[in-house]
């Protein structure tokens, strides 16, 4: 308690002493709650970008960037809103890197960011519902919407010449959301989904589920589940009963466990998961240099989110969200010089000189539609019992 008090006092002092040109960015992530193991690396990623910018001394004529952390809890919308409110009204942050989980992100956006006019860039909220959220142009995300994976899946299957599929999904928000967006995209493209059936995770026997899927038929079975849960059970039962020979796997199913469980029994099956062959990943790992786990999920997205906020400020020449919100899309997309992790100083200089940048970052950022990442996917095919890369898209 004493420590906390001292820390709070110190923060308050620092806040008081901050000079006008200093920039503050709120980092609101679920430091407690279901994804608390991921968030420290995510925050480190974002703060790495801030440090890089501060060290360069180029942002808005030498502004220093400070990070203010807050806890989104990932699940408690009330607590997240209060924490964000504190960031905006008492800490007076100029932008928010966060939040993490889709539910709290939506709550902070509508309750805090929009009323106060603060820009928010989430590194990890993937719910399709956020695409149409009312945001006054203030909300962006460096993670793709799950709807995007549905479209990519459709493209992969149609290119393979598959017109009719059976679809099963794990019975939760992830499975249902992905299955719905896939079905919508696939049917819009002229494909046929013969059945869309949920499966529960953690059962011993999936022969009844597979019986229904087999009765509906289809050229391929799409399994939107988890590889170490029911998804593998479905695939096992489908192979055993001879119902389906080939499958299509979205991201939840792709892992070394898949090779381990089935080997060459699923040869010819396809799939896709987020991934990129952009050189940004390697450069990111290089600059992190072991300070924290650079491969932890959504860590590079966090670096990119923070970098985008600061680059947009530089492009607008102002740290006022109302000014720089227009610039986020500009710095993220073409035209301009490609910017990789560790080159933020170069980008700031180009922008200062009135040039254009195309921020690629650690995750090959490309913002589309309502300001969300287009997402890069690695298309895979199972060949000889191994997951092999077909291509990146």
């Amino acid at each position: 308690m004493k420590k906390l008090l001292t820390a709070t006092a110190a923060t308050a002092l620092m806040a008081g002493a901050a000079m006008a040109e200093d920039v503050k960015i709120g980092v609101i992530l679920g430091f407690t709650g279901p994804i608390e193991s991921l968030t420290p690396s995510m925050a480190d990623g974002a703060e790495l970008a801030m440090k890089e910018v501060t060290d360069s001394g180029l942002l808005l004529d030498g502004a220093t960037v400070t990070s203010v952390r807050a806890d989104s809890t990932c699940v408690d919308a009330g607590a997240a809103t209060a924490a964000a409110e504190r960031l905006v009204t008492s800490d007076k942050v100029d932008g928010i890197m966060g939040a993490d989980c889709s539910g709290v992100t939506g709550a902070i956006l509508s309750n805090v960011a929009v009323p106060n006019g603060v820009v928010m860039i989430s590194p990890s909220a993937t719910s399709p519902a956020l695409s149409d959220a009312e945001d006054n142009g203030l909300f962006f995300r460096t993670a793709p919407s799950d709807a995007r994976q549905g479209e990519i899946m459709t493209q992969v299957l149609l290119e393979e010449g598959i017109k009719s599929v059976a679809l099963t999904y794990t019975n939760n928000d992830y499975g249902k959301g992905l299955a719905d967006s896939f079905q919508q995209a696939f049917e819009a493209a002229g494909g046929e989904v013969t059945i869309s059936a949920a499966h529960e995770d953690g059962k011993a026997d999936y022969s009844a589920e597979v019986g229904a899927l087999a009765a509906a038929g289809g050229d391929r079975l799409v399994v939107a589940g988890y590889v170490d849960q029911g998804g593998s059970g479905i695939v096992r039962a489908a192979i055993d009963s001879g119902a389906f020979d080939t499958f299509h796997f979205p991201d939840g199913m792709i892992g070394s466990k898949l090779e381990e469980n089935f080997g060459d029994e699923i040869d010819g099956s396809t799939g896709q998961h987020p991934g990129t062959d952009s050189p940004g990943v390697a450069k990111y790992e290089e600059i992190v240099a072991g300070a924290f786990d650079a491969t932890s999920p959504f860590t590079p997205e966090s670096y990119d989110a923070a970098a985008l906020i600061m680059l947009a400020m530089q492009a607008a020449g102002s740290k006022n969200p109302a000014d720089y919100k227009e610039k986020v899309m500009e710095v993220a997309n073409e035209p301009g010089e490609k910017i990789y992790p560790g080159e933020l100083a170069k980008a700031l200089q180009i922008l200062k000189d009135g040039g254009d940048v195309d921020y690629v970052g650690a995750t090959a950022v490309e913002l589309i539609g309502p300001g969300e990442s287009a997402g890069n996917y690695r298309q895979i095919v199972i060949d000889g019992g191994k997951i092999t890369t077909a291509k990146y898209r």
Partner: protein
Amino acid sequence: MDFLNAFVALSNFVLVPAIAYGSQLALGALGVTLIYGILRFSNFAHGDTMAFGAMIAVLATWWLQSIGVGLGPLPTALLALPIAILGCMLLVLITDRLVYRFYREQKAKPVILVIVSMGVMFITNGLVRFVIGPDDQNFADGERFLISARDFKEMTGLEEGLAIKTTQGITVVVAVIAVALLFWFLNKTRTGKSMRAYSDNEDLALLSGINPERVVMYTWLIVAALATTAGVLYGLDKSFKPFVYFQLLLPIFASAIVGGLGNPLGAIAGGFIIAFSEVTITYAWKKVLTYLAPETLEPSGLVQLLSTDYKFAVSFVILLIVLLFKPTGLFKGKAV
């Protein structure tokens, strides 16, 4: 040809899985019914007794595999089964000595024993998770299929494949042997007869000089053997996961009650009734009907009565119907 295809599709997705599942349920229900008939209470710990027996079988199988002992095409778990049965017998005898005997001497009411068995259930449940963990464990080895769907299609030239897993075959064979042994024991041996006498009329049995503690001990030993066999077969055929055995309690009790609690023959029939209802009601009949019906009558929907999510609801409903209209069960057991 269409008729054959329909039959093969039906066998592949309904008959074969339901027969295997029914045998597993029947073995489980036999244990519940014996306890109810002789010890006179519903043993809620039965599912977790199965899990405990199966757990020992898993551990023994791993040990046998590590020293390179196997049965060739048959799963090593069959060799581990006797070890597991011994281990499970030890467990039930210890719990009987520590827990149930106390209440028996007090002549506790059945409802108290039911609650006590729930306590035993939670402890056993925790014990199993403590030893082997809550996750899936795979211990099946040997040849996977008696006949695989692909081979069947090539052999017969039919459009539909029929797969019979080795574990399904073993389940049925072992279940038949176990049931035959049980009935021989109950009907032909002196101990079996004294158990039946004790079940029919406790006082009369005591008067004729039957030692009740001996009867109780033999009952537990048989129940442990049945529970372990059922647990191992289920784990082999599907997969071993402690929580799943807890869930199995419902269909097992439904089987025992539908057949008539305390009636071994009823338990077997109940097991198959529950298994076939669960599978047929949640099966999508589209494929079979498409083969059988003339083209104009082909179904466009899935023809599925209930989504597979409601599998357990089927046992509930059957249980309710039987209790409403024939509380003693189909085969005249004791009223619940």
